[in-house]
């Protein structure tokens, strides 16, 4: 599911142009998403520090070119051997969303995380970029375009229900990966109450911490770009330590939710 990146699009456009079979540069430009938050976020978040663009073998971002469900789009960040275990922070930015920073995630170095999956809301045609910072302070970025179009006509009802803050662990069969889901509406603050006509106040998971014993493996600041029932998935090159403890906090109520996973062989609770 690797998709067209702006880089390959540019290269392809240039190639076609040379071959004379080309869409004009204007057409090529119109196929890019309209500019979003990155231009203003870059100096705020990273100043003038150089940001490299590594190859797929080091880091990649993937997602559907056109999301089948704008309310729940899977985005996958993968690290190759060169970066796995050396990334101390990853940001995922959805340029054209009202709250572009989907997550800022700190990772424990040494744990060879080779994949992080998020489920996000995609507002409209946008770049989705991941910027990683290595333990040596190097910044690397990859991005894709995701189009939000589709034919549905009503709010999804499939995700509703359950108890607020219920946490589910879903390990992979080899015990190298685990998906963590938290029952939560993750209200953006933009939805309208059908009865009163007023905005439903924002109410979202703002922080997720994953630890094994005293060791913090991951801490993420999250926001309203994560889908209802926020879901993260981690994969590593080795069996995950156990037990794993997940702790989450929402805003503005600052409710805390926690659960423990006792390992692939034990029942989760």
């Amino acid at each position, binding site marked *: 599911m690797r998709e067209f990146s702006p880089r390959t699009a540019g290269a392809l456009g240039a190639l076609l142009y040379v071959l004379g079979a080309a869409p004009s540069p204007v057409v090529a430009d119109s196929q890019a998403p309209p500019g979003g938050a990155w231009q203003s976020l870059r100096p705020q978040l990273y100043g003038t520090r150089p940001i490299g663009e590594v190859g797929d073998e080091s880091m990649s971002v993937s997602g559907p070119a056109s999301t089948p469900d704008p309310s729940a789009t899977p985005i996958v960040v993968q690290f190759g051997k060169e970066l796995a275990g050396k990334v101390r922070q990853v940001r995922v930015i959805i340029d054209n969303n009202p709250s572009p920073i989907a997550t800022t995630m700190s990772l424990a170095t040494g744990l060879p995380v080779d994949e992080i999956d998020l489920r996000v809301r995609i507002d409209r045609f946008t770049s989705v970029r991941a910027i990683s910072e290595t333990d040596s302070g190097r910044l690397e970025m990859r991005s894709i375009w995701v189009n*939000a179009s589709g034919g549905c006509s009503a709010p999804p009802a499939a995700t509703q229900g359950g108890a607020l803050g219920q946490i589910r662990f879903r390990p992979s069969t080899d015990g190298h990966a685990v998906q963590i889901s938290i029952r939560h509406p993750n209200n953006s603050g933009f939805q309208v109450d059908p009865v009163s006509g007023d905005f439903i106040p924002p109410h979202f998971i703002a922080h997720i911490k994953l630890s094994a014993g005293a060791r913090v493996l991951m801490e993420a600041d999250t926001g309203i770009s994560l889908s209802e029932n926020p879901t993260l998935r981690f994969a590593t090159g080795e069996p995950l330590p156990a037990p794993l403890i997940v702790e989450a906090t929402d805003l503005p109520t600052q409710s805390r939710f926690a659960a423990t996973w006792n390992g692939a062989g034990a029942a989760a609770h």
Partner: protein
Amino acid sequence: MSVARALLRSLPAWVLLACAGTATAADAPGALTVAEIAPGDFVHYGKPLPLEAPGHDDIANIGFIVGRRCVAVIDTGGSVRVGRALRRAVAAHTALPVCYVINTHVHVDHVLGNAAFADTPAHFVGHALLADALARSRPFFLATYAADLDAPASTAQIIGPDESVAVGSDRNLDLGERRLTLHAWPKAHTDCDLTVYDVSSGTLWTGDLLFVQRTPALDGSITGWLAAIEALAALPHVRHLVAGHGEVTGEPAAAFTPERVYLSTLLQSVRADLAQGKPLQDALKEPSEAGQSHWLLWDSTHPRNVTRAYQELEWE
């Protein structure tokens, strides 16, 4: 509230709990073509088009049932134009008034024609949760389908029910020597599905609980939908079936089979993915054993169904 309304206009699609689609429809002809599939039961078959295509306001099966005293309209199409053309088709077949406009669920292709019946004495009838579902959908409908409403487009044209049927229960309507039994289902295709059974002719109007040829679109609960299919397929005395999309040609009892096979295969494959800890993006890449060659609009509908099923079943 007016501030909320004003801001809504500038909101992005997912905020409005929505997807996109922007085509305008061709003008409907004077009166919709209808077929009398059973004595007194008139059906207009919608076209197998995507929701973004020109003509997208005429994709659902809609129609009416004529009693001795009055007429019940079942769904009104995806635009006020189609609703008016349906009203002309009613008038072409009977001088009796329309006393009920029944909506089978909240989707745009079934409800946007309601405004064409606003100046009749008809009561609007729907599932107990239809009013809420419409309230959530109105801003999106207005933003996306304004061209399918009368200009100037307004949410006031998207008329909701004034009479409802409680979840899991029946309600009878009398059209004069013709009794209709309405049933409101727990979450299935959507969270507000209603079926209409015309007792005298043995005709069951399923709304979108039955898709024929067109890929079933999951917007409610896959387990709930399969349960509803089981109950509907077992109903005795059904002689004619009107699906939400597509035409039932064979035996009513067999008509649910392809949809049941599709949904149960999807259910099993997503459950298997979840049991193996397979992430959503991998589930989306799998070819379905349900056989895409049988279904129209597969590429746009099936991946969304996988996503919805995954999100429902991961909490089992």
